[in-house]
């Protein structure tokens, strides 16, 4: 067996590598408090300036090392929202109907949407963060969909939604979150948790423009293709080096123009979005801050259903 031959060859690697592996100290990801808020703020500013309302401008511009591509924006043009850092993720806190509708929440948040009390929040310069102190800002589960994609923030008498934006990725160059991580946030444990997949329109226009794909078999195939370990994911820096840095300005512009938006809706009605670049075969998720090289299986699915 060829794999056994390889395994045997690995048995005879240099002893220094065996020693090294036995004593190596891994550098754990920093805790969320260490996230560079500056870069997050920069990201939101970019978004507020109207650069790609939908998926946070998936592709970093050539040579622009400061642009951040991390968040799925959930605010309407001109809507300023607050950032919440909670349980390893960043959320956009808003009660603007446009933002809520886009995330699949039909009405503004009220006390009736509060599920279990999760804890207290403290206000910071950048927004809200968890605290063990008792404050008048509380965070609750969102009763209609008990997952971590939507939370309810009660600040004094105001109720707002905390809409999942993205995971903390302290080291963006090493952001390798597969789609399964995004599914976990939205409570998707199988194809049965997805209500439909459809194409969404450009910013500010109709949320859904294409046919809604809701057949069981089609959703099962979509789920399988997106969960496949063959779907390789890449961090921002790596993607830049591999793809955008090798393009001319013209190619880059053309490339950006091919962007299409996929909307995935859960059975609870929550929605999240991914950018699809059919010409070059890439998928981008702001939630995981990752770029996925579309496999043949997924490519075929998209071509068939997202006409």
């Amino acid at each position, binding site marked *: 067996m060829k*794999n056994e031959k390889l395994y045997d*060859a690995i048995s005879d690697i240099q002893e220094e590598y065996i020693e090294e*592996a*036995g004593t190596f100290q891994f550098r754990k990801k920093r805790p969320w408090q260490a996230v560079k808020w500056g870069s997050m703020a920069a990201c939101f500013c970019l978004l507020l300036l109207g650069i790609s309302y939908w998926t946070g401008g998936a592709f970093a511009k050539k040579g622009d090392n400061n642009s951040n591509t991390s968040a799925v924006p959930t605010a309407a043009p001109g809507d300023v929202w607050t950032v919440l850092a909670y349980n390893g993720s960043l959320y956009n806190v808003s009660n603007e109907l446009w933002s809520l509708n886009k995330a699949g929440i039909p009405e503004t948040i009220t006390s009736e949407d509060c599920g279990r009390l999760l804890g207290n929040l403290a206000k910071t310069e950048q927004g809200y963060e968890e605290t063990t102190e008792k404050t008048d800002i509380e965070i609750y589960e969102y009763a209609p969909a008990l997952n971590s994609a939507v939370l309810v923030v009660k600040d004094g008498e105001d109720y707002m939604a905390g809409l999942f934006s993205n995971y903390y990725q302290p080291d963006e160059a090493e952001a390798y979150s597969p789609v399964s991580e995004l599914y976990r946030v939205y409570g998707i444990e199988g194809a049965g948790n997805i209500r439909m997949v459809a194409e969404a329109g450009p910013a500010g226009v109709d949320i859904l423009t294409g046919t809604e794909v809701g057949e069981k078999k089609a959703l099962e195939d979509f789920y399988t293709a997106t969960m496949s370990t063959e779907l390789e994911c890449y961090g921002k820096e790596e993607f830049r080096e591999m793809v955008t840095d090798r393009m001319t300005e013209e190619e880059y512009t053309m490339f950006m123009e091919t962007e299409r938006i996929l909307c995935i809706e859960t059975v609870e009605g929550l929605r999240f979005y991914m950018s699809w670049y059919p010409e070059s075969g890439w998928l981008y998720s702001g939630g995981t801050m990752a770029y996925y090289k579309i496999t043949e299986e997924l490519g075929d699915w998209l071509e068939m259903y997202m006409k």
Partner: protein
Amino acid sequence: MEDQQIIELYFSRDEAALTETAKKYGSFCLRIAMNVLTVKEDAEECVNDTYHTTWNQIPPTKPDSFKAFLGKIVRNCSISKYRALHAKKRFHGLEVLLSELNDCVPAAGDVEQEIEAKELSGYINEWLAGLAAEDRVLFVRRYWYGEEVRKLAKLCGCSAAQMSQRMLRLRRRLKKFLEEKGVVL
């Protein structure tokens, strides 16, 4: 006790060498055997065989790294045992590792000449040398030590799914490297 002192005990044919080896490296050896075999009784048997083999090999061998030396013996012993048990259709941890390594098998080239195991080890060493330290350590911990993906994920502070992705990419990089070198297995 320092490794050098234990090795000296072997050279003076003092059986305390075995006790000291077991005391210092017993759990290390058992862990490697368990990663391959997954059955404690089988793994313990391999560890005992390892002490026996070590006793027979030192002297004349004087290992530079005693830990790596023991590791290689226990690993080889575990693989042999796995193969013997596998013939009886018993399932063990090594099967998972072997199936993952299929990703690294280079596509056949024009010149169909199979590479020798030693030469292949040389290429793997060369590939490992070119990796970032953390990637190299992860690869060795997974495919030499046989550690589980979820354990490595915990060490790195990421999810098991993320670690699986990272491993997949490492395997593909190795495959690409071997193909570039014209390796045929």
